[in-house]
């Protein structure tokens, strides 16, 4: 198997009394985009800053392209960084911002620099913007300039720190596709930090889910979604109920593995339906939400609260049944289980 391009090995970092990272390992192959996903304060930004060289880990090592880089200063790493608030130099034009990293590339002529700036602006769909000032651009445009600036010195690795968190939803969806396209086109190796699970799923080749300074699971989006290893990972994606297996389906052999007696069944709203086949769950219909493409039902029974999804056409029928006892079904062979005690702490 190919050597990983970025290898973070068992890295720990402590700030005062806070253990920001606890023996975290992460790898990223050439041309791969790895998303680091987790709630705020989980240590994902610290991990990114260690890879960028702004923090030095207390323990563990970082290798870039096979070379030890743990103590390499940021300016020697050849790692491009896109900041959460873009950090475009306010006293320089867009062109000067993008050209900044080219100052430190040896043997570039003035003409080369101008041509490179223009081609990068075209890459991010902002041709002719070189002479604008950052404060004359919209947030989305600034974000694209920040990407162009990070790409200018042809970094070996691109790091993106919550690059879209300051933008509104529709722009976010548009720009994440844009980032993915650029990453594929240039065959970039990239680490993408986000707290938005949908963003991580859509953009990444692999996802590392982080919690309290540890990586809970590291795998492809499908793996992380379909075979969550902990309750935290399971509940991070979508509206999900975690129901003890003995309550949900005491008689059923679960298909995926043989769960222990305290295992939790991962019941995602989209895989629980108000019709069979499957294992029935009976509970009182407490709430329902019309989502446009479907209706989401919230049931409460002896197993706790469970969400189910009904077809959008049935919204009126379900509204009339609010407060009544209803039955929903799930298929054990499609339902993953996770060990108990790995529950998300709220």
């Amino acid at each position, binding site marked *: 198997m190919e050597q990983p391009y970025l290898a973070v090995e068992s890295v720990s970092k402590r700030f005062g009394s806070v253990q920001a990272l606890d023996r975290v390992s992460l790898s990223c192959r050439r041309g791969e985009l790895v998303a680091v996903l987790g709630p705020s304060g989980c240590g994902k930004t610290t991990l990114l800053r260690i890879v960028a060289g*702004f923090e030095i880990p207390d323990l563990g090592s970082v290798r870039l392209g096979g070379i030890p880089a743990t103590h390499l200063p940021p*300016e020697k790493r050849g790692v491009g*960084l896109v900041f959460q*608030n873009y950090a475009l*130099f306010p006293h320089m034009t867009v062109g000067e911002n993008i050209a*900044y*990293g080219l100052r*430190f590339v040896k043997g570039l002529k003035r003409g080369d620099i101008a041509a490179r700036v223009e081609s990068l602006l075209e890459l991010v769909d902002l041709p002719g913007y070189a002479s604008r000032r950052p404060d004359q651009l919209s947030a989305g445009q600034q974000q694209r300039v920040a990407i162009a*600036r*990070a790409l200018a010195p042809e970094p070996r690795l691109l790091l993106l720190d919550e690059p879209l968190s300051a933008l509104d939803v529709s722009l976010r969806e548009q720009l994440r596709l844009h980032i993915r396209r650029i990453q594929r086109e240039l065959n970039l190796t990239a680490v993408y930090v986000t707290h938005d699970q949908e963003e991580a799923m859509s953009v990444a080749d692999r996802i590392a889910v982080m919690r309290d300074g540890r990586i809970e699971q590291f795998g492809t989006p499908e793996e992380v979604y379909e075979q969550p290893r902990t309750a935290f990972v399971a509940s991070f994606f979508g509206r999900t109920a975690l129901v003890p297996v003995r309550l949900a389906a005491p008689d059923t052999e679960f298909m995926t593995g043989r769960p222990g007696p305290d295992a939790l069944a991962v019941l995602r709203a989209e895989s629980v339906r108000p019709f069979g086949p499957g294992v029935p769950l009976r509970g009182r219909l407490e709430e329902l939400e019309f989502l446009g493409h479907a209706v989401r039902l919230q049931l409460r029974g002896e197993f706790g609260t469970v969400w189910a999804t009904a077809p959008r056409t049935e919204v009126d029928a379900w509204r009339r049944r609010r407060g009544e006892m209803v039955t929903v079904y799930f298929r054990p062979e499609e339902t993953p289980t996770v060990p108990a005690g790995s529950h998300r702490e709220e």
Partner: protein
Amino acid sequence: MTRLWEAVWKGQRGTPAWAKLLVLALPALAFLLVLFYIPLGRVFVEALRKSGEGDAAPALATLRDPYFWQLLRFTTVQALYSAVGSLIIGFPLGYILANRTFPGKQLVQATTLVPFVFPSVAVALGFLVFFGHNGWLNRVLFALFGLRVQILYSLWGIVLAHSFYNAPVVARTVHAAWSRLDPAYEEAARSLGAPLCTRFRTVTLPLIVPGIVTGTLLAFIFSFFSFSIVLALGGSRFATVEVAIYTQVRVLLDYATGSALAMWQTVSSLLAAFLYLGVERRFITGLPLSRPRAVPPLFRWSPLNCALWLYLALLLVFYTGPMLAVVIDSFQGPDGRWSLAAYQQVLFGGYDRRLTDTPGQALRNSVTFAAGSLAFALPLGTLFAYALAHMGRAARGWGARWLVLALETFALAPLMVSSVAFGFAALRAYRTGIMASLEITPQLAIVLAHGVLALPFIVRSLRPAFEQLDRRYVEAARSLGASRSEAFFDVELPLALAAVLVGAALGFSLSVTEMSATIMLARPGLNTLPISLYQHLAARNFSAASAMAVLMVLFTAAALVGMDRLARRWLGPR
């Protein structure tokens, strides 16, 4: 027409009622107009009026006088050197405050406020005692190397004193600019491959230039209009325009030349004020930081930290040296032994022909003047700052923005206008013309003058507080049924109370330490602490002056600490 009136008076959705805000600003404007602008206007009239047929007006006559040009040149040159000196001394301190932690940092940070609250005449005394011919520095040098240096009574003595006095100003502005600089910019430059020097030159420096420029400009302006230090350290040979006005009016009684100088001094100070506000306005950036700036400890080995160490040690010697010298001097008797004679003399010496007022009387005067001036300046300044903040927030387009800038300049001018010129103007105005019939007593004259001078400090400390106050608080109060003025008293004023108290403290210490305007208005029986100190100093009675300085600083500090305590009690633990 009605619609226009409605818009102006009631305000449209999202815009404030300009006319209402102007009404709030009016008392302060009237106060300044009557007590500041009209008196200064009279000085202009006097300076521009021909005294007889064939004579030129004093203001024009002065322009033809080489003495005036020499005076102006010296004033400018020493201010330039002093500004550069302040930058050199203050810049590293600003860097350290923004980028390092060390034990006692809070204390150092607090002492950078010293130039604003410390009587400059005490600084002059410290310099005399420390750098003087028989001062501490020379005694040490003589003991070690058998030589003495002549620093005082020269251009360099004045420049040195001004540099040390104003360096904390530069340190403050540099510190502020540096800590507002988002570390992400420097990190971005690093990740793009920029080495340390390039990073500093191309990213850090351009972004903190605002702090450097405003601080250095302030140091220049303060040195240009400095009075007490030049009066005490300049000897007979060196005088700035400020000192010259005082000499012309209070010593030579030449009111014509005095008014001419005062006029030119006022013109240049207004220009400086306008320049400063324009510069400051251009540089305002209030972006939130993406992450707090890292402040590693200073006491960690690195070549740069060692240099900073050395620098801090030197600062400690040169700042505490003069202070210590003053304290020790105050406990020395005429024979050089330890003694409380100086304190005995200033506290219980009784009437002294040279000194006119006893210290007890001076202290009483200082307290009365400070309290009186705050009674005027605090309410007027609060209302004005409030109006200005809301106008500034809503100002759209050129006209509105210029109106706000003009109003601000109008109220802040006393901060910048030469205090000696203002003192002279007040002196003339209250004795002649219409205002003579008001029979303003000399006590009231000083109180009003201090009120005029304190007003800008209060406006400056309050305006940002009102401006940064989240308007949703007011909107919440209004939606719960509070009227506009109830919302002000229930929500805005309590939230801005800390700033009100800071303004009051600044106004108080200004009144206690102010000397230049006061010395123009004072007369026997009305001397304040700094004037009393200066008289001891001028009589070359250094021990008594030192004792006086110690008492004055103790009093000022006690008053400020007391106010701080009071503020904490009012505001509760926050």
